[in-house]
């Protein structure tokens, strides 16, 4: 089954090549090909799911081939319970996005389809890559089509937004590259082999200072992507100017790269740095929650409002990741999925309105419910999902993150000194619950409720069949995520647990003094000069598999309370 990841990743690229060969006038055919390739990719990605067992240690469906042998770069893909759902989110959204831009993109359809498909390859590949160089390549591959999607099919200030987006992301990703190269050299110092492999880098122990610098580079790259306050200002511009499809992809998938990167790379690679600057990041994410919510409340443009709500929601995700226990991290990943669905769907809804009225300013709307009852129903569902209503997708993640944050000081991972103010964190994060309702319902009221006074809104069409087909799967997913989270948590939980155990193991092994070393490597071996990474991996089955401390090692209530 190892071919399935490769197939899923590169099928869209293949589709893009096919589209390039098609004549540009055949608009319908191009759209059809785009949609069917996206659908096919989705089907194949379901294939990943079918053979998936979250309990299995490590990554599944791994494929590990040499790519640039001289530099030790490998084509290494694999999926675990964390990336699985993000990949599925991506492949699920792409057909929806393709269908949603059916009429919205009338110009340069071929180029759009190609860009979207290339983007899809980048997004899927990035989630699956287990070689940091490969990851970086995919990470950058995503940037270019997105740049064009915003810059070519965007709104009035599209160039400004596109360039801001690209420059902002590039600043981070260049530092990321530098840090990756640094790790690459250090891995060579420690093992004698050149390798970008994730597994090697995870076992590489650096000194605290080195960890701090590398973590800073990683975290900056990913926090820009999240975006974490105060690095967020590219997001509203990009969202507002991007076409609906671009906004959806951006919000639903690209932002997830920030948090995915934090979870997959920044946290496990540099545990000591996390312990040191974690509180700062947590404070920023809390600031993001409150600040994003308040600023969202001041918006007049619907898309901008949703963009700022993303800042708030992703703040919750980052907070959850930093709390370093399975509840919070599960919740964070869950919130990523939920945000992907609810915010993506809200952007689709705004797209529906924009196609009819060519404006996104709230004061232009009002009382649309009577004209568009079906649309109103969908819009309401997604609004409430975004607010975090139980039964819809937003609640589960929020609850898990809050429960995890509140109990961060009492879990098996509590000896990482990050949780001095866990109760306060939880209380501040929970204000997002109130503020979320404030701005979302205010927006809903201004658009859908009240009197329909604007004559331009008197004759709006309700959803077309196509639009209904776009929004229905999103609504189904919103309910599914809310009503039966076990589907997702079942495979997610073991992977999260493994990640955290690896984190803790590396943390408790202590930082290196000066020379980099590998986790679980004894000195003699290095002097023999042949400790290839591969071997270590096999024998090194290390304590990573051991479960965390038995529950309630310290009886609750007597434990540390800040």
């Amino acid at each position: 089954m190892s071919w399935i990841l490769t197939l899923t990743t590169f099928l869209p690229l293949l589709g893009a090549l096919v589209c390039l060969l098609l004549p540009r006038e055949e608009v319908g055919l191009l759209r059809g090909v785009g949609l069917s390739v996206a659908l096919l990719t989705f089907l194949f990605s379901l294939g990943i799911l079918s053979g998936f067992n979250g309990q299995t240690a490590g990554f599944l469906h791994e494929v590990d081939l040499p790519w640039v042998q001289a530099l030790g770069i490998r084509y290494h893909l694999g999926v675990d319970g964390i990336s699985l759902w993000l990949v599925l989110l991506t492949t699920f959204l792409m057909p929806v996005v393709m269908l949603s831009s059916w009429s919205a993109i009338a110009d340069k359809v071929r180029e759009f389809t190609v860009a979207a498909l290339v983007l899809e390859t980048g997004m899927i590949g990035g989630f699956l890559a287990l070689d940091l160089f490969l990851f970086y390549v995919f990470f950058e591959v995503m940037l270019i089509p997105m740049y064009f999607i915003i810059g070519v099919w965007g709104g009035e200030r599209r160039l400004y937004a596109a360039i801001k987006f690209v420059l902002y992301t590039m600043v981070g990703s260049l530092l990321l590259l530098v840090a990756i190269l640094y790790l690459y050299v250090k891995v060579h110092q420690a093992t004698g082999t050149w390798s970008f492999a994730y597994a090697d880098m995870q076992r590489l122990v650096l000194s605290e200072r080195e960890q701090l610098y590398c973590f800073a580079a990683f975290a900056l790259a990913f926090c820009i992507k999240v975006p974490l306050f105060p690095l967020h200002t590219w997001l509203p511009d990009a969202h507002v100017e991007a076409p609906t499809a671009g906004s959806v992809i951006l919000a639903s998938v690209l932002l997830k790269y920030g948090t995915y990167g934090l979870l997959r790379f920044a946290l496990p690679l540099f545990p000591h740095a996390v312990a040191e600057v974690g509180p700062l990041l947590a404070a920023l994410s809390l600031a993001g929650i409150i600040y994003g919510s308040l600023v969202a409340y001041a918006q007049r443009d619907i898309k901008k409002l949703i963009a700022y709500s993303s800042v708030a929601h992703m703040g919750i995700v980052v907070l959850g990741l930093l709390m370093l226990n399975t509840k919070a991290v599960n919740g964070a990943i869950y919130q990523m999925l939920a945000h992907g669905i609810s915010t993506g769907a809200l952007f689709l809804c705004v797209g529906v309105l924009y196609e009819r009225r060519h404006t996104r300013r709230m004061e232009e709307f009002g009382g649309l419910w009577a004209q568009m009852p079906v649309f109103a129903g969908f819009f309401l569902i997604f609004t409430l999902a975004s607010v975090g209503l139980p039964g819809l997708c937003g609640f589960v993640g929020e609850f898990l993150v809050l429960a995890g944050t509140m109990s961060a000081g009492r879990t098996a991972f509590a000896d990482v000194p990050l949780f001095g103010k866990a109760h306060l964190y939880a209380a501040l994060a929970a204000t997002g619950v109130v503020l979320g309702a404030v701005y979302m319902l205010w927006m809903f009221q201004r658009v859908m409720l009240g009197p329909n006074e604007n004559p331009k809104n008197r004759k709006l069409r309700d959803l077309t069949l196509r639009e209904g087909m776009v929004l229905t799967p999103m609504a189904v997913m919103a309910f599914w995520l809310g009503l039966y989270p076990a589907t997702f948590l079942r495979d997610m939980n073991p992977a999260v647990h493994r990640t955290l155990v690896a984190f803790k193991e590396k943390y408790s092994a202590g930082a290196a003094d000066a020379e980099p070393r590998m986790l679980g490597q004894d000195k003699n071996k290095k002097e023999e000069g042949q400790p290839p990474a591969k071997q270590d991996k096999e024998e090194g089955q290390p304590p990573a598999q051991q479960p965390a401390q038995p529950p309630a090692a310290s009886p609750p209530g007597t434990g540390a309370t800040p």
Partner: protein
Amino acid sequence: MDASFPLHLIPLLPLLGAIINLLLGRRLGKGAVALVACGSVAAAALVATRAVWVLGTEGLPSGALVDRFFQADWIFSSGDGLDLHVSAGLMLDRLSAVMVLVVTWIGLLIHIYATGYMEHDPGYHRFFGYLNLFMGAMLILVLGDSLPVTFVGWEGVGVCSYLLIGFWYAEDKNATAGRKAFIVNRVGDFGFLLGMCLLFSLIGTLKYSEIGSHMQTLRQPLWLGWPAACFIALLIFVGCTGKSAQIPLHIWLPDAMAGPTPVSALIHAATMVTAGVYVVARTHVLFDVFPTSAKMVVAGIGAATALMAATVGIVQRDFKRILAYSTVSQLGFMFVGVGTGAYAAGIFHLMTHAFFKAGLFLGAGSVMHAMGGEGDITKMGGLGKHLPVTRWTFFIYCLAIAGIFPLAGFFSKDAILAGAWAARFQLARQGFGPFSVEWVQHFTQDIYPKLIWSLLAAAALCTAFYMWRLYFVVFTGRFRGTADQEHHLHESPPEMTVPLMVLAAGSVVAGWVGVPAVMYHEGDWFGAWLAPVLPPPAQELSHSVEWGLMAVALCLSVIGIASAYLLYYGGISEAARRAAQILRPLYLLLYNKYYIDELYDVVFVRPLKRTAWFLWYVVDAFFIDKVLVQGWAWMVSMLGRAVRYLQNGEVQRYLVGVLVGTAGILWVTTTLPPRRAAAFRLSQQGRRVTLEAGGGSSRVGLVYRVDWESDGKWDEVDTRWSTLTHEYPGQGTYKILFEARDPRWGTSSTRRRVVHIE
């Protein structure tokens, strides 16, 4: 012993009805919609009744029926030593049995009533869809076996309330009222959610049945020496103040009357708003922990709310608004009940109140239906003749709420008053600062309960007064509305009047299940039913005190009714108007609801808006984006602009650059090394002088010459050593000449230095 029962049917049936009505309702037609809505609720009611029957006959008194339908965890997360397992479990014990019966049967009556009331509304199917959705959520709330499941229902009813308050969405006022309700509730939910998470973080479970076994942990001090249970209880109570409209979160309920009247009856009187009382009773183990500060807060807030709302109710003019304040006030009574440890009394009042308050609202609906939607009671009057059924049923409700023997309200209110009088709070075992322990005990055990009792008694007096004021103004005297309205006055159709009559009957008899023991010693059947699940009040009152309290309460009610009769019988009397004139400041204060909305506007709403505005325009758009982000871009572009002058497209200028650059490179690579190297450093030891070329660093490929005495004769020629030593023969002052040369380029450089030898 827990027995199994398919409890999931109870909430699922109405939810199914909701799905059918919301998705297909428009095509079904009104008859089918009504059938689905009422049918699903009726089915749920029957299942619920059967379940309660099974519980009462088969299980142990303290046991519960559990649902085995949802086996797997709903939300879970494991592996970090504090595993979270939330199952979507339902549970029916004696407490939830009361709630389930009240919710389903009163809900059914109101559904039936609404089929008549909403008959001409274009949003018929939507209305019943929401109503069924509400029923489903409310049943999940009361049946949930853990806090998160309750929270699901809790939020669900909140949303339904939001949707139904803003049901007539075309008016901004309604939509705003709905939004206000939801947001204020969310403020409460903030507390609920935090309380839930805090509880979980301490004991690792959220199931009601398991909390009790962790009390040891929960009694541990958490902060400032207060036990964890106190904080959890208070946080949960914050949620309850939101849902049950208690001070300080009561402001949404009067506005919520913007919704259709059946909604006000079902959600904002009989069921949803009582959820807070239910949850306090449900989690009573947290409130019972010593010190009972959480209970004191609950009782205090309940009493304050009861009196505050009752006084406001006296002067309001809007029919439903009066009832809304009455609801807030009665909910305050219930909170006093659960707050003073008289849990059964609180729940008892919850049940009786559901009958008469639902009836009052439905009566109000019937009146407003007849009046064409008019809600101002000063425009009514003399409606008794036109609406006989409504009038007489309303008469019964008013008697019941005023607490006249032997109607329902009398018994339940009496139980609460007795509970308040008997309460003994315990705050501390030592004194606080200036207060000695005796004083604290005196306060919490004698003064505070009596204070609460007196607040309640005052509230009861006001209640009797404002309810009968309402009754007399609306139903007696002559009609004060327009002739057109008078012409259209008519009694409501049977689907509306029958529920009124049923509820009236309930308002009479519902209290008889809880006759106090002093009257009939096996009379408190209701208390006995709940005794296995809710602890009885700690203190028993002596019979004489209890009789006395009852008499006082009854007297107060009669005084209230009598004064209302004097002032308002046959319309608003001159005396009433004069009283309003004389007490004008007080009147205005009450009429404007103590200006609390205005206060919140100034203290919370406007600052929030201003802060949002400030953060957006000043911090975000200006500071972060303009100054920081675009500032960087601006710096880069300025740099680019500066450099642009070099790239002017004139090849000849470039050539100058090329030449100057080439010359510079040549100079640096050929002349500079000897110049640097020729700068030497001297160190002296007696007569021995050591010379280091170029500050000590030797340069590859350079050769050196040195003339130690400057006598024109090179002493060392073309040496490659950059450190040279010379021993002078005797004292004197010598001049050293040093030359560094690069033989590859033929460039050289010389330096001189004077040295003194002693």
